């Protein structure tokens, strides 16, 4: 495996071979993939990528997988010039990277899970697992089904089953654990370390998280091999945000684009904003919080990559901002009514924060800004109940239609 040198601890730098491991034995820090960029540079080119599949796998040279077998249609989602929203915010070059239409389960998780399970198959695993009720479970269950892998999904037992219908349809084994979220977290970790399974965001996490880099690769290619001036992305564990940054830096490193990496703006929900708080208070460590927000898909109170996200925000001259639940709802509605895109609460958070930054005068009107929309609103429509306009009721009468709807007699 020439392109990948091995794994390395992000904290102490200890090196490891390419194995399904994720924690440093010495300092317990997280492990990350180390590439041989000189070797990659010899084999990669814009032309080769452009001739590749219309999926995230066109960037396989910069991913830790030799032979992609899972999620072959994931990625390569639209990059839309947001003229209407841009006009409203005073931005002439605003783009939306729309992962609400990722294949097959309509969120950016299809990227990371494709990479995780392709790698899992290379390692010889026949079982995929995760602990989730949302986008992650949807994606793991769907990809495991298509890959012919067994699948286990762990959830706390007090959750309503209708929350997981979108995963149950793929026929995974759902294990409802008597206990709270922390109990599920601990049990998942023990299972990942004891069974020969690919627990996507545990023992194959170093490979899984690399999938998010493709959000940077695609944007650069779709902009005509240019790096945007600024990007806005949601922060949950901090992994997506830091990997977008890594992706742009890699493109420069292997010579596919020129220029400097973008300014990284991040978005958190006010009710779960430990990374924002660390940045504002000048801390390099995260104080865990108890989430209390409607933005469930980004509500991670103890984010594993939080300290690295703080570092990226500083290094890129970026910033992180927060949005209240009301602002998140308004963000969802604003994107829908201006661009015709229905996103979920994570996307609402990103749009709300984009608006705040614009109102604060953070952008030059001509700079190229890309906002990452990571999930689909049709999955969490309940958050909009009572927040939208009501139908106009009329009798089946043309007179009443003219009076009540058109507003003239």
């Amino acid at each position, binding site marked *: 495996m020439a392109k990948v040198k091995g794994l390395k601890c992000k904290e102490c730098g200890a090196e490891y071979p390419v194995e399904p491991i*994720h*924690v440093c034995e010495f*300092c*317990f820090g997280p492990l990350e993939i180390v590439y041989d960029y000189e070797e990659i540079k010899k084999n990669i080119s814009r032309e080769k990528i452009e001739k590749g599949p219309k999926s995230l796998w066109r960037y396989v040279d910069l991913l830790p997988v030799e032979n992609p077998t899972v999620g072959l249609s994931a990625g390569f989602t639209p990059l839309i010039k947001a003229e209407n929203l841009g006009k409203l915010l005073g931005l002439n070059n605003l783009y939306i990277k729309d992962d609400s239409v990722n294949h097959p389960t309509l969120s950016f998780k299809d990227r990371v899970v494709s990479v995780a399970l392709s790698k899992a198959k290379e390692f010889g695993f026949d079982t995929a697992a995760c*602990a*989730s*009720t*949302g*986008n*992650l479970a949807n994606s793991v269950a769907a990809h495991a089904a298509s890959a012919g892998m067994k699948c286990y999904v*762990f*959830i*706390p037992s007090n959750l309503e089953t209708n929350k997981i219908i979108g995963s149950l349809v793929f026929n995974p084994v759902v294990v409802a654990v008597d206990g709270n*979220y*922390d109990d*599920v*977290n*601990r049990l*998942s*970790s*023990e299972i990942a370390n004891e069974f020969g399974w690919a*627990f996507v*965001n*545990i023992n194959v*996490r170093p490979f899984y998280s690399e999938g998010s880099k493709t959000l940077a690769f695609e944007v650069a290619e779709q902009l005509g091999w240019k790096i945007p001036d600024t990007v806005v992305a949601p922060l*949950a*564990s901090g992994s997506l945000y830091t990997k977008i940054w890594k992706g742009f830096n890699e493109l420069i490193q292997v010579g596919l684009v020129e220029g400097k990496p973008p300014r990284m703006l991040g978005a958190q929900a006010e009710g779960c904003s430990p990374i924002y708080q660390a940045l504002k208070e000048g801390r390099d*460590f995260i*104080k*865990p919080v108890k989430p209390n927000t409607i933005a*469930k*898909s980004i*509500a*991670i*109170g*103890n*984010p*594993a990559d939080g300290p690295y996200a703080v570092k990226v925000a500083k290094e890129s001259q970026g910033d992180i901002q927060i949005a209240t639940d009301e602002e998140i709802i308004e963000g969802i509605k604003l994107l829908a009514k201006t661009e015709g895109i229905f996103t979920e609460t994570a996307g609402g958070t990103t749009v709300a924060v984009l608006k705040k930054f614009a109102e604060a005068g953070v952008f030059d009107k001509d700079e190229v800004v890309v906002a990452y929309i990571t999930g689909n609103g049709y999955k969490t429509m309940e958050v909009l109940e009572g927040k939208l306009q009501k139908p106009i009721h009329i009798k089946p009468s043309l007179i009443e239609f003219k009076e009540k709807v058109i507003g003239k007699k």
Partner: protein
Amino acid sequence: MHSMKLKLIYPEEKVKEPILSRVCKKFDVDINIRKANVQEKMGWLELEFIGNEEEIEKAINFLVESGIEVLPIEGQVFVE
């Protein structure tokens, strides 16, 4: 012998209590602290519990009942 890597998070009101010392006395587990940050208003430790599965489980339950948040070393892996 079983081992488990854990992250313990102490809320402000528990920072002053010698809870880990109590764990050592009450349960047959070895504790190997690898990283820690303890301040007046909060604290966290990354450590390894070594012992048999039952004793480790009892020790974890004791910590949780004592008001400590006990996460795996990976932190929160469950996502809605």
